[in-house]
């Protein structure tokens, strides 16, 4: 069962409006049946009254003509009998099947006096006995009033009328009239079409109702499936946003949990065992949380846990228990005994964040610190971490872009100033947003810096560079922040991909960009040496601006200087810029360091840079960045 479920308008229509309309249609149908019964009764009464009036008139006629001798005159005189039978035939009409005159003999048996039946097989002889099935005939004699009955047992007859012929206060005979069943059918057939319409509408609405409820059920099931991670059977990231539409973070503390070195389990034991480890860890964590907590697989081996509780100790103590439990757990997977640890970042005050993404980012930053601290540890946000990020793209946008393969690399060629041939390509990171717009790294890297997502993005760029080298035999230049080479995860990626693969690394330059002043030159020097040992060329990006200065050249073994674009753009207008570029070029030339001029946008700039002895040229004048890799 979901913890919460957002009810849409269509759901309200399905659940309330459709049953209401179905009920109305059934009530209308029922009301129609009642009305039909009333109409039927009115028609029936009208028909009977019409016939009774006719019979009454004829009874008066017989009374006047035959009087007290009605029996004897008919029984004793066939011609009289024939004459009155002919009259009776005229009275019969379509709706009366049988019309006859009976009398009661001394044994109280009824016998025919007249019979208007035309069919000789069905016509009774005069004085023939008439077997009565009902007592209306005797009642007509005793009450001297017209008797009417419905024939339930006889299938060809509908209603029978027994009309007593009273002379001088004595019943001498009874006129019998049997309505044919066809009259009943005619009335029913006249009223049936409307009944069928109402019935079909009621059935249609009922079927619609059943279908609607089946659809709701299927929708509910599929919606539930869409929120459940198929591997671990816990909620996925989509459910987090669904959950927050009806719930507040006010009473929650947020944890980001990541399995340490999980990738090595997948690499060494295969994905089946990797999946088994994930499931085992999830089950272990589930045993430490309560129903009111929310446990979500946020992606890969990363989990998000919302702990319901307002005391800051709650989340910290639960996190510690979980961490210890996982550390002590031995996972038996296909004869392998595996141990794993987890790192946890905690945001104790997610409600203070501008939104859930900011809250997650803070937890993710803490997770990063936990990783930096050596893994298998917990880092908790302090109040100063509550300040909100001003970046336009959120961490979740980048995660979503990674999942949907929307982290892309454009390539811009770098030309030889002497041969004017392409000697390498610079990879330029881009994010394609949901609307298909290209987002530059400045807009999304700040929000993911110091998070695991940043590592994932770096991995994608490195994989792409390798693909280009292998597939197209290109030389590639890759940008790294100076902090990146201090990051153990990123360095491990380079080592895992390029160690003992100099046939790959010799085609790759790493452009180092600096955002902060270098404090520990020795450590930087060590890391750059490691990269050079792997076979990479090292370039200093944006040389001549900001922090990037000649100190590098004293301490670091640099292969390439990439002169800052702002100097190149002012080359023609600013004599100081010209002389700086000239000095850099001369110095680099003397030191055996290659030079690259970027942001070259005019032919004059190309010619000047050639005169100054710049080795490589890059810029819009020569070629724009492109996603066309062939």
């Amino acid at each position, binding site marked *: 069962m979901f913890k919460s479920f957002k009810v849409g308008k269509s759901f309200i229509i399905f659940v309330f409006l459709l049953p209401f309309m179905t009920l109305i249609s059934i009530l209308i149908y029922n009301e129609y049946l009642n009305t039909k019964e009333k109409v039927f009764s009115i028609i029936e009464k009208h028909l009977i009254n019409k016939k009774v009036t006719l019979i009454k008139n004829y009874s008066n006629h017989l009374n006047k003509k035959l009087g007290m001798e009605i029996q004897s005159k008919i029984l004793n005189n066939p011609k009289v009998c024939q004459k009155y039978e002919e009259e009776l035939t005229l009275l019969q009409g379509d709706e009366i099947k049988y019309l006859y005159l009976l009398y009661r003999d001394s044994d109280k048996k009824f016998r025919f006096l007249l019979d208007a039946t035309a069919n000789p097989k069905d016509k*009774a002889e005069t004085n023939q*006995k*008439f*077997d009565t099935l009902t007592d209306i005939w005797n009642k007509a004699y005793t009450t001297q009033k017209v008797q009417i009955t419905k*024939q339930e047992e*006889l*299938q060809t007859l509908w209603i029978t009328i027994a009309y007593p012929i009273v002379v001088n206060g004595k019943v001498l005979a009874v006129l019998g009239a049997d309505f044919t069943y066809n009259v009943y059918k005619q009335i029913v057939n006249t009223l049936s079409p409307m009944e069928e319409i109402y019935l079909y509408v009621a059935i249609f609405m009922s079927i619609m109702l059943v279908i609607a409820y089946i659809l709701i059920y299927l929708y509910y099931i599929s919606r539930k499936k869409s929120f459940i991670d198929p591997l671990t059977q816990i909620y996925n990231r989509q459910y987090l946003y669904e959950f927050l539409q009806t719930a507040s973070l006010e009473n929650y503390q947020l944890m980001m949990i990541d399995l340490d070195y999980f990738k090595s389990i997948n690499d060494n034991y295969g994905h089946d065992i990797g999946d088994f480890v994930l499931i085992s860890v999830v089950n272990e964590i589930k045993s430490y949380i309560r129903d009111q907590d929310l446990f979500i697989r946020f992606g890969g081996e990363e989990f998000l846990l919302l702990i319901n509780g307002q005391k800051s100790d709650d989340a910290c103590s639960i996190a510690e228990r979980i961490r210890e439990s996982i550390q002590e757990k031995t996972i038996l997977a296909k004869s392998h005994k595996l141990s794993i640890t987890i790192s946890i970042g905690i945001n104790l005050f997610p409600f203070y964040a501008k939104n859930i993404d900011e809250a997650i980012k803070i937890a993710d930053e803490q997770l990063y610190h936990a990783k930096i601290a050596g893994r298998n540890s917990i880092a908790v946000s302090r109040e100063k971490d509550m300040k909100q990020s001003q970046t336009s793209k959120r961490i979740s946008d980048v995660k979503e872009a990674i999942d949907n393969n929307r982290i892309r690399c454009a390539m811009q060629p770098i030309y030889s100033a002497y041969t004017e041939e392409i000697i390498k390509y610079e990879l330029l990171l881009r994010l394609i947003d949901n609307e298909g717009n290209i987002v530059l790294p400045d807009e999304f890297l700040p929000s993911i810096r110091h998070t695991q997502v940043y590592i994932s993005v770096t991995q994608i760029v490195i994989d792409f560079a390798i693909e280009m080298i292998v597939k197209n035999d290109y030389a590639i230049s890759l940008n790294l922040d100076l902090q990146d080479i201090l990051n153990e995860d990123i360095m491990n990626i380079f080592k895992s991909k390029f160690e003992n693969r100099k046939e790959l690394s010799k085609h790759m330059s790493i452009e180092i960009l600096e955002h902060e002043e270098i404090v520990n030159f020795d450590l930087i020097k060590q890391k750059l040496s490691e990269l050079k040992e792997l076979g990479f060329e090292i370039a200093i990006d944006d040389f001549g601006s900001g922090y990037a200065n000649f100190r590098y050249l004293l301490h670091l073994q640099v292969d390439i200087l990439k002169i800052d674009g702002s100097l190149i753009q002012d080359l023609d207008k600013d004599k100081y810029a010209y002389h700086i570029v000239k000095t850099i070029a001369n110095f680099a030339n003397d030191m055996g360091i290659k030079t690259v001029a970027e942001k070259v946008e005019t032919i004059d700039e190309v010619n000047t840079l050639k005169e100054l002895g710049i080795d490589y040229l890059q810029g819009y004048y020569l070629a724009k960045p492109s996603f066309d890799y062939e």
Partner: protein
Amino acid sequence: MIKILIFFFIITTLHASDTNLESKIFKNIIHAIVQKEHPTIYIHKKLNSLSNHPGGLNISSKCEDADLVILSTLKGLPQKCQGKLLFGSRYSHLKNSNVIGSFFWQKGRPNILFYKDRLKKNQIKLDNSFDKYIEK
């Protein structure tokens, strides 16, 4: 197609209920006349109600074995049936004085008629419940 099936079902049901009722009435009459637990009858020509629902009756193909002969017509009555008790299924059958009684449908109603003298001649004593069907 469904309407045709429903119509067919109703017609066969009505027909079945008519023949069933007729069969029951015939059986009551036959038991009253023959006064045996399993009377043997011979049906002259065809009488669907009894042929289809014989119940406790033995229907013989030989007239000489029969306790009672049920007539659907008087025409072509075998010589061997002469002297046997005859019972009609039409009012007109009663015109033959050897026919002791008849059960027939008239005006959509079942009618039973016996003649007292014919019953007496054949030494048949019917139950009192048949009195109203006996004509003097």
